[in-house]
């Protein structure tokens, strides 16, 4: 399997806070890689560094065989990296369709407006937002805004999709819908790197999981291995009974 993204010894600190320490891992094409860790473990920071929002203090990031460590978010978008944010960022005064068109126009394929409109409608259809296409994005509810985040990222036809807690804040039926959407995306051949707190979903959906704690990678493996890893159980779950419950779910 080819390596799509390779992260080596990534280190980032904000003032005295060591947010990431020597984090290394690879993402293979077509995989779903899960990223878990307690609050404040540095998960979103890791996304921000990979995404070019922050530059790392040390270490390197190679995406599609090119060193992208110092590139800007828009350079990475053009290369085929797209992202759905944890805290949704809708373009409120634009319509839902226009929001998605921004992703299609300025993403990997650099489409014209008219082509982007077609892509936007297709993507909206697939995430179930087509009937809202002409509404202002600001008028959507939170579940719809999460779908919009996803639709914008997908419209860029990325190679790698970064999903930051797309399930958080959704009710159980919305979660099921979203998980199906993730499966559909993977079926299209898009590689996914996702942060999630919902263990059940994560254990089911991921091919591999890495675990961060205080900015360090403490485990890397198949979902089953992660659930049995004593270090993960201690550092991340704290409570052994919780681990049993987790195993039961998986």
């Amino acid at each position, binding site marked *: 399997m080819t390596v799509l993204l390779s992260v080596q010894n990534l280190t980032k600190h904000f003032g005295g806070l060591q947010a990431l320490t020597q984090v290394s891992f690879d993402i293979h094409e077509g995989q779903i890689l899960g990223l878990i860790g307690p609050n404040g473990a540095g998960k979103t920071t890791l996304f921000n560094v990979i995404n070019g929002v922050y530059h790392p203090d040390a270490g390197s990031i190679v995406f599609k065989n090119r060193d992208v460590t110092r590139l800007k978010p828009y350079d990475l978008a053009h290369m085929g990296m*797209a992202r759905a944010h944890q805290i949704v960022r809708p373009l409120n*005064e634009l319509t839902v369709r226009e929001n998605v068109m*921004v992703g299609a126009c300025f993403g990997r394929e650099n489409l014209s*407006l008219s082509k982007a409109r077609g892509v936007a409608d297709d993507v909206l259809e697939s995430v179930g937002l087509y009937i809202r296409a002409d509404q202002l994005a600001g008028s959507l509810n939170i579940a719809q805004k999460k779908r919009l985040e996803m639709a914008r990222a997908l419209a860029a036809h990325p190679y790698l999709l970064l999903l930051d807690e797309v399930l958080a804040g959704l009710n159980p039926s919305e979660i099921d819908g979203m998980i199906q959407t993730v499966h559909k995306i993977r079926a299209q051949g898009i590689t996914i790197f996702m942060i999630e707190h919902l263990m059940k979903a994560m254990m089911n959906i991921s091919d591999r999981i890495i675990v961060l704690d205080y900015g360090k990678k403490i485990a890397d493996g198949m979902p089953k291995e992660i659930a049995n890893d004593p270090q993960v159980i201690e550092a991340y779950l704290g409570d052994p009974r919780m681990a049993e419950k987790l195993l039961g779910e998986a």
Partner: protein
Amino acid sequence: MKQLKNFGLLTPALWVSILAVLLLGIGPLISRSASQRETIYIILQVVVLAASLNILLGYTGYVSFGHIVFFGLGGYTGLYLISAQNWPLWSAVLAGGLSSALLAFLLGKAILRLRGAYFALATIGINEAVRAFVNNFDPFGGPVGMTLNFKVYDGYGGAANALWMTYYVLLVMALAVIFLNFAIKNSKFGLGLMAIRENEDAAEVMGVVTPNAKTWALVLSAILPGMIGTLFFFKNGNIEPGDAFRLDYSIEMLVIVMLGGQGSVLGPILGAVGYEGMRNFLLTSPIFKNIQLSVAGMLLLVIVLFIPAGAVGWLRKHFPALKRVLV
């Protein structure tokens, strides 16, 4: 034709705006009255300035308090070329536009990294800095400025003719600024600008090359003010730092764009007509004539508080049927 359609150039919405400018501009052409021409000249000038500012404020979401610097610098460049280098008006107008565009380009690289209030403050600083520079720059006449030799107008069929000519040119520029606004609003570039306005970080992550897009928005919003700056001071016959870089004029532009509706094409036209109409009333009224700027300030406050989307936004909201023609 297809290309035109893609830019939305054949939609009724564009023609509403074009018609509004023509209706505004046609009066003096019929009456041939010089005083009416002067009144409309000022309104059309405000239309061009406000619609240019709209590219930055309305589409990109950046507040510039010093936009008049492009008008003043264009005026100075053009007048210098006409009076000291004997350039014809046409080339001078173009040069005025280009000098403002160049300043905008350099500023874009330097200060568009600032966001929100910091950018707004920086634009005031730029206006004051350019004014101070011109005040001490001898080729531009320093604090006394420059005065055109009356003979210059002979080349344009005498002073009276030259004044009419500047009016025609301005009318064309007003139409040009409407086309420019429309083309931007209906282009991919414009979509990128609006994405920046709504959420700059999200736009960047989606692939909008924000530094370039913002710089070009600033350049496009500076060209026409530079050109009509030359035109105005040519008509005026002289230029001084105090007249060219009036901060209060910058703030009035903001009020006008917000009054009409930021981010809309028709907005700056409605705003210019409404505001200038109000100002003429205030200036001639014995009660208000000394406090007309405070009234403008109050007006800005009321707009921001109660109709943030301006007149066009208000109309679109309350009369959805108008959505197709009012953009």
